[in-house]
């Protein structure tokens, strides 16, 4: 994927930021509005893939030093971890809970343990998608 495509690069610079912001929005919004860990994770992966396409694998890997395989594994561990957390309180495995809290800036905010589970989902999805695409593209 080595090409000197000025237009793609210029667009990607802006688009990646927008996509990442939007995916974060999708992720956070998932509890009440369309979105969630899977979509958020997948669109984040799309943004990362866009970066790889436009700037080349070497350059991006220099700047994002992250092992996406480990990221996926961490995601799965987080998801399982939230499952076991419920067990410690005597609830069945994977019981999710939620509550309303009065936070300084946000006012009355609902915090749900499902968001931690969702984080795990998102990380697993990002890690796996990027990992597969990188593996195949490195195979020359």
């Amino acid at each position, binding site marked *: 994927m080595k090409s000197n495509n000025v237009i793609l690069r210029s667009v990607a610079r802006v688009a990646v930021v927008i996509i990442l912001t939007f995916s974060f929005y*999708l992720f956070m919004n*998932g*509890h*009440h*509005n*369309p*979105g*969630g*860990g*899977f*979509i958020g994770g*997948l*669109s984040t*992966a*799309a943004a990362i*893939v866009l970066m790889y*396409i436009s700037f080349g694998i070497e350059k991006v890997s220099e700047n994002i030093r992250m092992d996406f*395989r480990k990221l*996926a*594994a961490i*995601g*799965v561990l987080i*998801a*399982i971890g939230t*499952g076991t957390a419920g*067990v*410690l309180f*005597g*609830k*069945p*495995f*994977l019981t*999710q809970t*939620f509550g309303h809290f009065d936070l300084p800036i946000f006012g009355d905010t*609902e915090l*749900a343990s*499902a968001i931690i*589970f*969702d984080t*795990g*989902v998102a990380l*697993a*999805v990002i*890690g*796996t*998608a990027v*990992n*597969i*695409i990188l*593996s*195949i*593209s*490195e*195979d020359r």
Partner: protein
Amino acid sequence: MITFYIFIFLPFLFAFLVPFLYKYLNRQVHTGWFVLFVPLSIFIYLVEYIPAVASGATFEYTLSWIPSFGIDITSYMDGLSLLFGLLITGVGSLVIIYSIYYMSKVREALHNFYIYLLMFMGAMLGLVFSDHLLVLYGFWELTSVSSFLLIAYWYERKGSRQGALKALLITVLGGFGMLAGFIMLIMMGDTFSIREIIANMDAIQGHALFIPALLCILLGAFTKSAQFPFGIWLPDAMEAPTPVSSYLHSATMVKAGIYLVARMTPIFGGSAVWFWLVAGIGLVTLLYGSLTALRQTDLKALLAYSTISQLGLIMSLLGIGSLAVYFGPGETGTVFTVATFAAVFHLFNHSTFKGSLFMVVGIIDHETGRRDIRYLGGLMQVMPITFTIALIGGFSMAGLPPFNGFLSKEMFFAAVNDVSHAGIFGLNKIGMLFPIIAWVASIFTFVYCMIFIFKTFGGAYRPERLTREVHEAPLGMLISPIILGLLVILIFFFPNVLGEYILIPALTAILPGMPISGHDVKISAWHGLNTELIMTIGVVVIGLLLFRTARRWIQVMRNYPQGLTLNHFYNQGLSGMEKRSASLTDRYMTGSLRHYLIYIFSFFVLLLMSSLLLLHGIQIDFSNNAAISIYEVGLVIAMIIAAFTVLLASNRILAIVSLSVLGYMVSMFFVIFRAPDLALTQMVVETVTTVLFLLCFYHLPKMTKKIERIPFKLTNLVISVAVGLTVTLLALSANGHKLFEPITSFFENAYELAGAKNIVNAILVDFRGFDTMLEISVLTIAGLGVYILVHQRVKRRGQREIK
């Protein structure tokens, strides 16, 4: 309650810490010292239960796991599980102390070793404390897996890998049989709980599945406890490090089968099949093990066969003891209760003396570099302490006083004498075989014990045959076998303390219907000059004669043809199976992707179409459909055009782009039908897969318009039309049927139940959280699979270039 579970699951929880302890602290402190904390604390915790359990109390705890399927981790503590729990953690502590000195801090991958060991310990504890049949099964298989990992611990060695594979194949085969048996039990008793099944015995006895369930469960128990003819995995498992052999393959894991038989005695005991299989196979194993042990020159192999033989002894005692269920409370019943008591007693004794003997072999191996008795001899002068321990353990195994093995061996003789004139199940005809086989096997046992002790420690000391200079083992390595050796002697002098607090509660658990008083099962070393004592004296006299003349006849035994051993049949069977399945698989696994797709699609069409037709499933009903809007018509037209473009495209880029157009059109449908979540997902998935396709197509050759043969094209046409037809019919019929109440109303309460206004997400993370968790696990595994496949290919190509 939570304390109990924290202690039971402590091995699993602690295993997470082990890699860090190893990485950061191993240079200063051997990782084993930290791990020792686990079994020791559980042991102390369990000891606190002894007084309560001894007075007849039982404890029950429930932890919800998957309540919607009725799967809970129901733990039940009675005398039997407490006895096993104490053995697992007690012997476990000693083994870990021993391993600290046995496993080198510098050379060995200790974190792997201790994680596997903790995994085993946790699985074993889970197994013995579980009352839920399926949970028990899960832990049962986990012990097989951890045993596999531990046997293959030195995986660079071929023998280790093969031994591990053999153990896994045989024990998991039995495990599957056991699962089938459990499922039959669950069907008969209509409950998952062992205790409820026992309480509901009337429904089970006389049920058509009673005998099949019995056979299946025994298959599991016999493979695990290395009974004849499944015992061949145990000698090969000796490739594991010695602490593992002494822990898993003599003291605990191989006794899981015994545990299962004991647990199931209230259910199956009293039937003739159960008696003959358990007692009969047990006796055959006893004889086979002791005979084969004589031929061994490797000390560990000798101990492995002796373990098989001793397990057979315990098994046959349990079989004889099951007659107590047949006779019920009364004088005859009590006689056989004593046999069960002897089984439990010998089980405990065996763990003590065999554990110490394995540790002795480990010490000899560690200090001399040899395990072969043909090279060893005269170690008595250089290793006096080790010799003493070996003497205690060996004499106890041979059944000599003043060691605990004498007591349980006498009780064993008493039991076989009693059973020979029980007069039921056809025993009046061949009952005499019981004492005869038992007596002959005991002679052989005596002889191999003598070989073990005196060929290693007696005779002339020949240092020139050994590879290194020999001296006594370090104190740390001696502590554990000394403790076990002391127990061997202490139990001989104070057997009834053990009996009252640990063995009788276990007995009550195995035979719940029997009134058991301490008077019936009093152990005493001296009970007059009776048949049992005469039998023991006979064993010693003939055994000594045989041992003195061993040189003459043992060579004959070693020349036993290899082609007639069980191992030979196993190897033949395995390689035959591999060959058959390879030739069968090669017939359809051609390597052509087109063929694979043909198989997949034809099965898909065949299965779905035939079930649709046979079950009269086709029912098309448009009456409830909404009106078709102009947008939908437009989208469908666009989709059809895109689909045809894919078919007719002359280059790949065009094909890929039109395929993604098709996908985006589908997501437009989701928008029209007000499913924003689906639309979003579909859109992002399309984007990512398009990139993926482009990457994959890089590897493909240029698309050429070649003219294929007519049959080739015809097959493609038939299959694609059939698949399309099937899916369409299926979708329309699914719409036409209303078989069940819709479950939508449940999800509409998402806000109250999960605090989420987005139903889709609430389903994903909460209602069906289990699915999501497993899905992302599968996703991650698939990703790793792709990575490994691609990278191995790259690596192999690189190697070829170097050549």
